[in-house]
């Protein structure tokens, strides 16, 4: 299969979906030159720097028969538009009794690792997961990025599509025909017996690298990528933990009230999975600080392979301890 990078895969999805359905249009403060040349400046619009307005515009146009794709730029910038997501997008269908659908996709980049400091290095998915009413996508490969963006655009609900910055230039095989990846289906990226590692976005790759490394020691790591956080394919995760008895969740958001917290809660509150747990579940997350600018500090703030390895070893020791 041909290989392209994460951004190219997303661009292909945009082009194909705009070709497929003329009700799809896109708004952003940043020019998408290729797309604009293909579809014109009516369907590929530059907006003033007015996130509240163009986030609400997505909702109003979606409620009026269109399928807008709104690009916020960095997730950072969407917080000036938060009301339109918290009080409108996540509630509008339910509080109106389901009388209308709102097929709008909100895209944005997330994550640290490139020395752009506190405001521009955020991964706040869990703040949106907490709001019942939004679908939330977080791909880790070019193929998933393309297939999931297509599904997001075709979905009849507000979807937030998170794009991890450190994955932008990552290359991988992507089918060139029209392949969608369904929302709500996790993927076991590597099978294993001893410990279940749930990684998110960039940390799926890092977890796979760690799994490879630990295999040489005879430690068998199963790596799961949820791919979408809402709906969350909890059964795949629980099944894996019932098999391995051990869980490590790796993400670059701070741990408190994070997707990692939720995954641990979902695993431990299920009686069968709880009984299968041989060790305390582990979170490998960002330090509880705004991401600092200086390289050594930023590195210390974010998860890395050594810390994933440590957590896995803790989970394995925990096994003995908990006998």
């Amino acid at each position, binding site marked *: 299969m041909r290989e392209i990078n994460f951004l190219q895969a997303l661009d292909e999805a945009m082009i194909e979906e705009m070709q497929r359905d003329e009700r799809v249009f896109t708004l952003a403060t940043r020019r998408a030159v290729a797309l604009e040349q293909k579809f014109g400046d009516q369907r590929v619009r530059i907006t003033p720097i007015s996130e509240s*307005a163009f986030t*609400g515009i997505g909702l*109003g146009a979606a*409620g009026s028969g269109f399928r807008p794709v709104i690009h916020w730029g960095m997730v950072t910038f969407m917080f000036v538009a938060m009301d339109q997501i918290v009080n409108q997008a996540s509630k509008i269908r339910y509080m*109106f009794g389901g*009388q209308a659908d709102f097929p709008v996709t909100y895209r944005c980049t997330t994550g640290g690792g490139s020395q752009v400091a506190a405001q521009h290095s955020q991964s706040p998915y869990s703040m949106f997961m907490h709001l019942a009413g939004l679908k939330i996508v977080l791909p880790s490969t070019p193929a998933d990025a393309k297939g999931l963006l297509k599904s997001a655009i075709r979905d009849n609900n507000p979807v937030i599509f998170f794009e991890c910055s450190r994955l932008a230039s990552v290359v991988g095989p992507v089918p060139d025909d029209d392949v969608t990846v369904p929302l709500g289906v996790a993927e076991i990226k590597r099978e294993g017996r001893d410990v279940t590692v749930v990684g998110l976005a960039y940390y799926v790759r890092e977890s796979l690298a760690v799994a490879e490394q630990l295999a040489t020691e005879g430690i068998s790591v199963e790596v799961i990528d949820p791919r979408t956080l809402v709906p969350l394919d909890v059964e795949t995760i629980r099944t894996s933990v019932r098999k391995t008895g051990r869980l490590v969740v790796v993400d670059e958001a701070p741990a408190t009230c994070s997707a990692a917290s939720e995954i641990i809660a979902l695993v431990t509150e299920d009686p069968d999975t709880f009984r299968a747990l041989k060790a305390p579940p582990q979170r490998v997350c960002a330090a509880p600080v705004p991401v600092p600018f200086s390289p050594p500090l930023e590195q210390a703030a974010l998860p890395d392979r050594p810390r994933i390895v440590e957590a896995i070893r803790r989970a394995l020791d925990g096994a003995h301890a908990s006998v």
Partner: protein
Amino acid sequence: MTPSKPDLVEMLRKMILIREFDLLAIELRKARRVHGALHPYVGEEAVAVGVCSVLKTTDRITSTHRGHGHCIAKGADINRMMAELFGRVDGYCKGKGGSMHIADFSIGMLGANGIVGAGLPIACGAALAAQLEGAGGVTACFFGDGATGEGEFHESLNIASVWKLPLLFVCENNQWGADNAVESVRVVQDIAAHANAYGIPGVTVDGNDVSAVREASETAVERARRGEGPTLLHCKTFRWLFHAMRDVPPPETRDPKVLESWKSPARDAIARHEGDLTGRGILTAADTQAMRERVKRDLETAVDFAEASPYPDPKDLLVDMFAE
């Protein structure tokens, strides 16, 4: 275009219906028969009715927390509105929304909204949809004087002007934002003055003169349908009653003289339009009497409809969350 006699009569009927609907809702709320918070539109009827009288069913509007008048003016069914206040399954939102979230997308009423200012961007989106459809549709968004303090007021005016969206910004200046007089939250009292900085028309009208509101709206709507962009319409009116009530209406704290003058027949939008129609011989006193009785009967029917409708079944709690 001067409105037809039937139009003029229908405008009067709708204003009376809006007023009676809200007065009845207050009584029902006091009696604990309906629930939640109520924001009566009494005194401001000419704004919603004047604007909506020049809109088609396919045109769209966004509303506010004070939305009953906008619903009725746009043509909503009072039975289903009443059922919503009662929290019943035949309500517009199946009882999930209540007074602050009534919507009827089938007639282009995109919803009341509990967030001050939040309807403006949504209206821009509906107007963008109309622009992309290219069928000459327009959108009107209603918002209060208090909402002019919110950033979304400015962002929406700017984007709408840049994209020449077919949109009416209708500011209902009822002189108060909750407990705060408009003079205490802005320096310049002519809200239409904002329009200049966006290069769009800004028009101030007597919001208690339904014909003046209609005329100004017509000009703005025609402009929008021609693709020439949005208009900011500043309608000066007054809130007769309290800002909001829960179990009991809060005490009136505003100057009684001012209230009186606004409620006087000389300023009351309904009295003025009624006087106009009877004066011009379009209606007799008997006609308007009959009209009022008809409205009362329709409202009784609405209450019966609502009470005959069952409460939602708790096992449907999760229904309507996500579309297929």
